[in-house]
Each structure stands twice: as C-alpha cells, then as structure tokens.
C-alpha cells in the first residue's frame, strides 16, 4: 500500500493530471468497505479496526496531498477528471475541486479516521466499519461531483450508511430517528431530482445537448420565473440537509440517537452537504434567484441562529444541546452565504470547516462521557473536571472555539460572516451577532454544570480521564482549532479566488453589485494581503 502511494506521488509530481487523485478519493474508501466486508469472520474483530483506519488514513493522506498540490492562484476547478458514464442520461463521472470544496474534502479526509478511532465501538464492528467507509466514499463524491446526476447519486447514497449507523448502533429511539432522517432528506432530494431533470431539459435548447455538467448548465438561459422555481426545489433539498430553521426537526433526533462516530460525521461533514449545495448549485446555477430569495434565506438563517441558541440553552441532554448549537452555527453559514459578498461567503466556507472541526470534537467528548457514565443528562453529571482534568481541558478549548473566542477558529469565520453581512444587510447582522453571546451562554453554562463542582459518588467512581487512544484522537482537533484561529491565511488564500469568481459570476448574471468595502476582505484579511505584498 505504502509503496504504491509513494510511487503514485512521484508520478503525480511529474505530471499532475496522470494520477486520478479525485477519483481515488472516492474509490479508495469504497474499496476499503469491500475489503472489510470480505474479511474472514474468525479474525474479524482484531483486523477490522486496523484495516478501517488504514483506508481512512490513506484517504486522509490523499486529501492532504490534494491540499498541498492545490494551486491557490486558480479560481476554477482543478484536478478535473471527466469520463462518460450514462450516455443516454447525459451524465458523466465528472469530478473537480476548487477553493470552495477543497477544504471540505480535506475535512472529510481528516474527520473519518478520527471518528473511527475515537469511539470504541464493540458491537458488530465489521458492518460498522464497512458502513463508515462507504459513507466516506459517498461524502467525498458529494463534494467532488461536478455533474448534477453524479452529485444526486452520491447525495442519496450517503443516506443508506448513515441510516444503518443510526438504526443499528444508535441509542434510545434510534429507529424513529433513523427513519426520520432518511425520509426528511428524501423529500427534499425528490424535489431536487425533478428540478434537476427539468433544468437539464430546459437547458438543452441553449446548450445543444442533454447534459448534467454544472459548468455547462450555468448558462442554461432560463427565464427568471423558471429559475426561481427550480431554485426553490434545490433550496428545499439543501435546506433540509443544512438544516434551515423550519426544516430542522430531524436533526436533534438524529444527532442525539446516533452513535458517536455517526454524530461526528453527521455534524462534521454531512450537514455541510447542504450548505455546500446551496453555494455550489444554488448560487452558481441560479444566481438571479439566489439573490432574489436572499432576504428570505437571510431571515431564515437569523431565525436559525436565535432559535438554535435559545433551544440549546434549555436542553437537559448534553448531546442534544450540542445538536441545537449546530442549528445555530449552520444559521451563520446560511447567513453568510446569502449575504452574497466575497467576505461573508469566504467566511461561510471557512465556518463550515470550523464547525466541522469543533462540533466534531464536541460530539467525541460528549460520546466519551456517555461511554463512561451511560448518561448524557446534564443534571446527572457533575464535577468531571476533578476526576478527568485532561478531558476538561480539551472540552474547554473545543467549547471556546465553538463559542467563537478570538484566537480560536470559530471566531474567524463568524467575524467574517458578520462583517460581510453588515455591509449590505445591516439589521440581519446585528441580530445575528447576538447569537454569539447566546452561544457563550449555553455552552459555558453547560460546562459549568457538568465539569465544575465536587463530583458525586457516581461521577467520581465511573469517570476516568482520557485514555491514550482518546488523547491521540482529540489532539489533532485541538491543533487544527488553534492553527485555524491564529493563522487562517493559508485557508482563506485558497478559498478566496473561487469565492471571488463566484461573486463575479453572480454579478455578471444579475444587476447586483457588491459594495466595494466587502470586496476587499476587511480587517483580518487585509493584514494577510499586506503580507502577501511583502
């Protein structure tokens, strides 16, 4: 395995195109799932975790390599691989990566091995690992697809492993949660399927062929009304996935009942499939409609921020609290997306990564508490800090990042979103800013109740500090949190060109013009631009 990787790496160094890097990112975890499925059942328990880790880590390494090889000056799609798939449907295996998807791919590569390593899942490991690997293949496919049909296939395919992970390895009311998760997403994607086929057929006149290639569909030449209807269908699918406020009710159930790895992946990358979809397909394919529906989406985003935060405050279940905090954070991302300024959009893309890292880590920590104490009720937990100081320390850092304390990653994204939104949509930004304060309220209060004080009998006896395996899992998260908080420039440098290109694309299709203030990245980014000039 290792030698072939090195060989592949040297080959790619000579010609970046020859090695199908993106296809490998999708295919490798899939191969891993097959390998795991066919492991001999006699030795499956000892073999399955190393093999699962090997494949997820190899995929992670590939995504790391993609990050290094990515050309940050280029705004358009890189590493494109395009092969005809189903000719009659006009669909192809068309993968590509740009600044908007790059970090999501890297995040996926980063999160999966850790999600597999973190929780010690003992029940039917073989199927568990196979599902996680399959899930990774699907998620990679979602972020890399440049073909609507392929995207849809991946978008729906990921439902199946996640459904089984929640239904098979979850807690409590898992059947209900799993089914709700599946059906909610399917309603949205059903509408999207119709919209996408309609788009392809309507665009055929303008393009001259039936195709699902989004780079071609961007010039579909639709009438305003048609585009708005189609946008609504797409937006419905993604809004359910995000989830945007009135459609969010599946999320607390799914997150709470899912096994730890499931929650990490669900919050870490799968929610981003929605926000990513809103940017990649919503804005890119329907710029005029996006800007027309902007105020609605902005309002829903703000409602999500407030609603998620206020609901989180009153939660009795720690995991549910984190789940509702996701609703609030995703509200920020929606807000930044539909403010449609370079700064807010870059902030949104960055915030997707931030949220993935910090909420992923939070779910891991909550999962570990549950593994020890077999309860997630805040009322039952007390004084953990005394018995598990390292866990408390890690929890503090992760929590502060989630709150958005300067110096940690959460701050950068939220700040950019708020500033970028403020230029054009002042009041939305003002109201949204209160969400930051509420986040501090619910997280700090929860921390205080669970970690501070004297541990009672049950907590003192059952809770022990992080094991070595758990420490190995959580440290990468903390490192990333600090790096992204202190020095976000490498991240933003790669995000920016693509975001700028997208905003220009919107401007070319509508009479919307970005205020000059927002076009230059403002405070933080101005500093990094100066550095660039040196």
């Amino acid at each position, binding site marked *: 395995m290792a030698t072939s990787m090195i060989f592949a790496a040297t080959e790619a160094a000579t010609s970046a195109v020859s090695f199908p890097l993106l296809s490998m990112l999708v295919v490798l975890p899939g191969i891993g799932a097959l390998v795991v499925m066919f492991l001999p059942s006699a030795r499956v328990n000892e073999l399955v975790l190393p093999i699962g880790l090997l494949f997820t880590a190899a995929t992670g390494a590939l995504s790391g390599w993609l990050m290094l090889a990515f050309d940050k000056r280029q705004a358009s799609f890189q590493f494109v691989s395009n092969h005809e798939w189903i000719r*009659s449907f006009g669909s192809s295996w068309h993968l590509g990566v740009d600044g908007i998807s790059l970090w999501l791919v890297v995040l996926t590569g980063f999160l999966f091995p850790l999600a597999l390593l973190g929780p010690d899942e003992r*029940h039917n490991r073989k199927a568990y690992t196979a599902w996680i690997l399959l899930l990774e293949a699907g998620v990679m496919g979602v972020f890399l697809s440049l073909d609507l049909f392929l995207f849809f296939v991946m978008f729906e*395919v990921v439902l199946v492993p996640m459904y089984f992970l929640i239904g098979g390895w979850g807690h409590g009311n898992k059947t209900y949660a799993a*089914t709700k998760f599946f*059906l909610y997403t399917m309603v949205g994607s*059903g*509408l999207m*399927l119709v919209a996408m*086929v309609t788009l392809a057929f309507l665009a055929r006149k303008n393009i001259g062929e039936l195709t699902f290639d989004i780079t071609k569909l961007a010039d579909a030449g639709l009438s305003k009304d048609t585009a708005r209807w189609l946008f609504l269908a797409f937006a419905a699918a993604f809004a359910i996935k995000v989830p945007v406020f009135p459609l969010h009710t599946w999320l607390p159930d799914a997150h709470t009942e899912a096994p730890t790895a499931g929650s990490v992946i669900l919050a870490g990358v799968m929610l981003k499939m929605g926000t990513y979809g809103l940017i990649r397909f919503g804005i890119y394919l329907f710029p005029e409609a996006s800007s027309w529906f902007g105020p609605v989406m902005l309002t829903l985003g703000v409602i999500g921020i407030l609603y998620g935060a206020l609901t989180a405050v009153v939660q009795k279940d720690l995991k549910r609290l984190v789940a509702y905090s996701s609703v609030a954070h995703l509200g920020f991302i929606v807000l930044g997306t539909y403010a449609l300024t370079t700064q807010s959009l870059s902030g949104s893309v960055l915030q997707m990564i931030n949220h993935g890292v910090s909420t992923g880590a939070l779910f891991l920590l909550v999962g570990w508490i549950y593994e020890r104490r077999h309860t997630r009720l805040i009322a039952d937990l007390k004084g953990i800090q005394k018995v598990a100081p390292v866990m408390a320390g890690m929890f503090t850092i992760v929590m502060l990042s989630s709150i958005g304390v300067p110096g940690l990653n959460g701050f950068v994204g939220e700040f950019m979103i708020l500033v970028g939104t403020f230029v054009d949509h002042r009041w939305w930004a003002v109201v949204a800013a209160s969400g930051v304060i509420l986040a501090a309220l619910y997280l700090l209060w929860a921390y205080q109740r669970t970690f501070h004080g004297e541990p009672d009998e049950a907590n003192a006896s059952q809770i022990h500090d992080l094991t070595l395996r758990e420490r190995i899992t959580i440290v990468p998260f903390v490192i990333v949190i600090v790096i992204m908080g202190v020095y976000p420039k490498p991240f933003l440098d790669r995000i920016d060109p693509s975001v700028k290109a997208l905003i220009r694309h919107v401007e070319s299709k509508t009479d919307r013009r970005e205020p000059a203030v927002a076009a230059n990245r403002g405070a933080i980014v101005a500093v990094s631009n100066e550095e660039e000039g040196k």
Partner: protein
Amino acid sequence: MSLLAQAADGAADTSSALATKLATPKVDWIAISPAVVLIAGALVLIVIASLAKHTKWVRGFSTWFTVGTALTAGAFTFPLWDRVNHARATSVLVDALHVDGFSVFFTVVAVGAVIMATLVLDGYLLREGLEGPEVFVLMLLSASGGVVMASANDLIVLFLGLEILSISLYVLAGSHLRRAESQEAALKYFVLGGFSSAVFLYGIALTYGATGSTNLTEIAKYLTNNIVFSNGLLLAGLSLMLVGLGFKVAAVPFHMWTPDVYQGSPSPVTGFMAAAAKAAGFSALLRVMLTGLATQRLDWQPIVWVLSVASMLLGAVLAVVQTDVKRMLAYSSISHAGFILIGLQAANAAGLSGALVYLFAYAVIVLGTFAVITVVGGRGDAAHSLDDYNGLARRSPFLAVSLTVFLLAQAGIPATSGFISKFGVIRAAADAHSYAIAIIAMLVSVIGAFFYLRVILRMWAGSDDHDESSTANTADAADTADVVAQIRMPIATQLTIAFAFALTIAIGIAPQMLIDFADRALLR
C-alpha cells in the same frame, strides 16, 4: 387442455388461411420462434410428465426441461434482435404480429422471468411436497401468452395472448393444493380476471365499430386519415380497453384483486405474476396506445395521468398499513405500476424507453424479492408477517443483504436499478413538461421508502439484543451459529437470488447497456 387444443386449432386455421390467400407466402417461423418454442416445450413436457407420473425424477426433470425450453426461446431472440435492428420490423401472419425490438425486449423479460421463477419453484415444490410438472407447463404457456401479447398487432390476437397468459395464471395461483388461501386467490383472480377480459373484449368490439378494423396499423391509418367528429364509440372502446389492461397491470382503481391474489398465490408464482404478467400487460398497453391509438393521445393521456397518480398514491399509502409482507409488496407493485404509467403518459421516446427499463429492472427486483420471501415463508408458505422478518440478518445474512438491496432498489435509492428506472420515467415526464406528475412521483417514493425501510430495519435491528449480549464473548460469530437456526435454501434458489442481486447492482451502476437495449426496442 381444451384451451391448448383451441390454440393449436387456431394456429392451424391461420396457416391454412395463409396458404390460400397468399398474403404472406410462408410463415416466418424464425420471427415467431420464441412463442412456438415455449408452446412446444409446454406440450412436450406435459406429455412426458403424464406418461412418467409418480416417478421421482419428474420434478427435477421438469425443472431443467423448463429452463432449457426458456433458454432455447431466449436464444432465438438473438437472431431476431439482429434482424429487427438491421431491417424494418417483420410483420408476420397477415400483419397479426409485429416482431420488432419492442416484442423482442418483452420476450427477453418473459423468458427471464420463467427461468428465475422456475429455479425458485423447484425448491418450493420439494419443500411443500407438491407434484409439479403442470406448474411448469402452465408457466411456459403463460409466458408464450405474454410473448404473443407483446408482439400482437391485432386486437383479437392480443386478446388471445391475454387469455393464454391469464388462464394459465389463474391456475398457477391455485397450484398450492393444500392451502385454502391459494384456492381463494385463484378463484378471485379468475372471476375478476374473466370479468376484465370481457370488458377488454367489449372495448375491442367498440373500437372495431368506430374504426372498422381490429388491426392496430389499420386503426392508426384510419384515425390519421379521418377525423372522427362524434367519437363516442371510439372513446368508449378506448376506455374499456384501458380498463381491461389496467386490470392486468394492477392500476388503481382496477387493483382490487392484487393484494389477495399476491398474498394467496404460491410465493414463486407471485414473483412470476408481478414480473411477467405486469410486463405483458404493459407491453399491450404501450403498443395499443402508442401505435393504434397514438392519434387519440389527447384523449387517453389525461386518463392515464389519473390512473398513474391514483396507483402511485393509493398503492404507497395502503402499503404502509400492511402487516403481511406479500400484501405490502402487492400494494407496492400497484404503486410501481403507477410509476411505469408515467412513461406512457409522457408518450414520447424517453417515456417508452423509461417504461421498458423500469419493467425490466422491476422484473428482476421483484423476482429476487419473492425468491427471498419464498425461503423465509418456510414450510407451508405461511410465515409472511412483518414479525417473521425480525432478525433475519442473524438467521441468514445472505437473504438479509439481498432483500435489503431489493427493497432499497424498489425505494429508488441510487446505485441500484430502481433508481435508474425511476430516473428514466421522471426524465420522460420532464421532457413532456408533466412536472406535476414528476413531483407527485418523487413524493410518493418517500412514502414508499418508509415501508421498505420498516422491513429492512426489522431484518437488521432484530439481531441487536443477541449481538450485544455476545460482545463480551470474543468468538461471537461461532455462538451465533449455535443459538440461531440458520435458514437453509436450495442451491437453485440461492443462484436466482444472487443473480437478481448482481443484476440489480450492475444496472444501478452501469445501466447504459440496458438503456441502449430499451432505446432500440422501438415500436414499429
């Protein structure tokens, strides 16, 4: 038997008529070879089996003879396919049959359904202690009826095919002699089926009255050249034919027989019914509507729209409340009929191709599903309640994985053939600007997903308690085998399920070949 004699007489009559009239100088045997092989095989089999009754080898022999016959019939489609692709369609027997890509496509489906159902039936008969040969004979005959239906270019011939198909199926439904449900199913199917055939026949008569011909080409010609001002007669004929064929494909509101018959019939027969009978019904529906009555498109499209939406919705909604798996699948098959009707409603090339792909993929899925159900049903073919599926994954991972894929395919999840077929009809609807029906279809498939998932979860979740208790034990694989009685199944059944499984995934991932096949299976 009397029916056979009639059919044989009819064939003799036609050929002698041909000889005198010289409309076509000789019978094009190659063109009608699949149907001929199927009928001949059935006749030979019943003769051999009745001479050698009560010997042990009869059942095994019948199985392989049936498979052999079906394979031979299938082999004859190759030269035919070559021919219909390179030349114009062949019209045989005084234009009574049109052998074109369309009919070859359905011949392949019918023959495939015979083979798969036969392989499952073999184990079923052994388990149930039933005799056998007549079941295979009836199945071959029924398939020949389906082939005739798919190629019929004359409404009378179409009716003959329909009757050959149906009467065989009535008997097949009642072929489990010791189960009262099976007898009940047969009677119900027969009474309602006979009634719908009569309605269909009346529809033919009225259409003949309106157009002066029963030949579809002639009808089309007449309707193109003449504008029918008072078209009451034609409309009545058209609607009655829709009713008759709607019954065969189990479209709402002509679906009442489906749940009882699906539930009562022997499980492999139900699979055959859902695959072949539905395909044959649709072949007739598509041919009549898209060739003979193509000009009346604006009349029948709204009717088909309503049938389609009603079938999708009612099938899915009623499937949700079922506790019997076979009944649930009966309602789901009604729902699928609604989906296929979308293709007809679109009435364009994409719709035809989409409907064909759907029928092919659905036939494979449903045969696989009922093969699994046959095994799970156990001796007596009775264990079909949802509870019987609890923890299936523990009793037989192979069955559980296969059924999961089949059900996910029926729910239309990507990477299975179900998604490709669903996409095909949605594409046709979008092409024809029927957006409403496309949206309804997608929302209905969510309801569908709900009841498929319910079965899936029962299969997998039932195994939880056991596995959790055994996790302490490292060798849990070994003691699972001790505690749980593994389900055993005949190798032929295993093969069928594995084949259906492989095909379902293969079509889901690389469907281009099937789509090409369907695209070239044109009506001519």
